[in-house]
């Protein structure tokens, strides 16, 4: 599948609207109604479907690969000890 930034070649307003909706869904900021509307739109708009699929694949990959850092052993204890010192 190819990513193409042009969502709709003929309808500039439509392009802006569906891109806006796509971004809201992607950013987990869309309402249930907007999500439903976007889902319907995807059935008839291949460029949006392709862009959404690619963006979601990247988002999923980020979530899988970029959060492996865990706090080093001893840091929590060290912070707590310093906090108790401040409190005293």
């Amino acid at each position: 599948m190819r990513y193409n930034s042009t969502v709709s070649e003929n309808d500039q307003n439509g392009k802006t609207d569906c891109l806006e909706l796509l971004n809201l869904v992607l950013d987990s900021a869309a309402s249930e109604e907007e999500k439903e509307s976007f889902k319907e739109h995807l059935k008839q708009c291949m460029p949006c479907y392709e862009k959404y699929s690619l963006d979601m694949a990247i988002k999923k990959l980020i979530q899988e690969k970029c959060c492996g850092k865990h706090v080093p052993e001893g840091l929590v204890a060290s912070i707590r000890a310093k906090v108790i010192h401040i409190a005293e």
Partner: protein
Amino acid sequence: MSEKQRKSYSRKEKELIFDTEFLPHIDSMYNFAYRLTFDEDDSKDLVQDTYLKAYRFITSFERGTNAKAWLFRILKNSFINDFRKKSKEPSKVDYQEVESYYNSDEVDKTITTDLRVETVQDMIGDEISNALNALDVDFRTVIILCDLEGFKYDEMAKILDIPIGTVRSRLHRARNLLKEKLSGYAKKMGYNN
């Protein structure tokens, strides 16, 4: 928060808030710090500074409100005000030049890639992490806050001290830039499309 709005907590209450509302976010905080500094020792220092500041200013925190966003805001400010100045990392590019380019409409028009979903799904190594790390810190930050930490637009606006509209456009640009980086890796990996 103004002086009038400051909370009055006993020492026991402060410790309870610290343990039950602040410390549970320490893994996310450390991961964020690491993605900003790229160094484990610096990340430890940054997280520790953040938690000590959080405790010192605990009267500005209202129990039951969004502790995670509050802590992320402190960490981000500590990074900018204290850490970034001390950082030995050289400036790789002229920042003004980068900002004016990224804030122009050109960035949306010119960034197109022929990246495929299947190619992204085949990236099982460090490509995504490297691509994210290669982004300018402001773009990297919004991706981390939104995609990894699940913050909403209004929360990100508060953490970053920028309007919601700027959060949205920065996220959009960051996603485009990330795709551009990944497309570059895909070509190196031998995928032609």
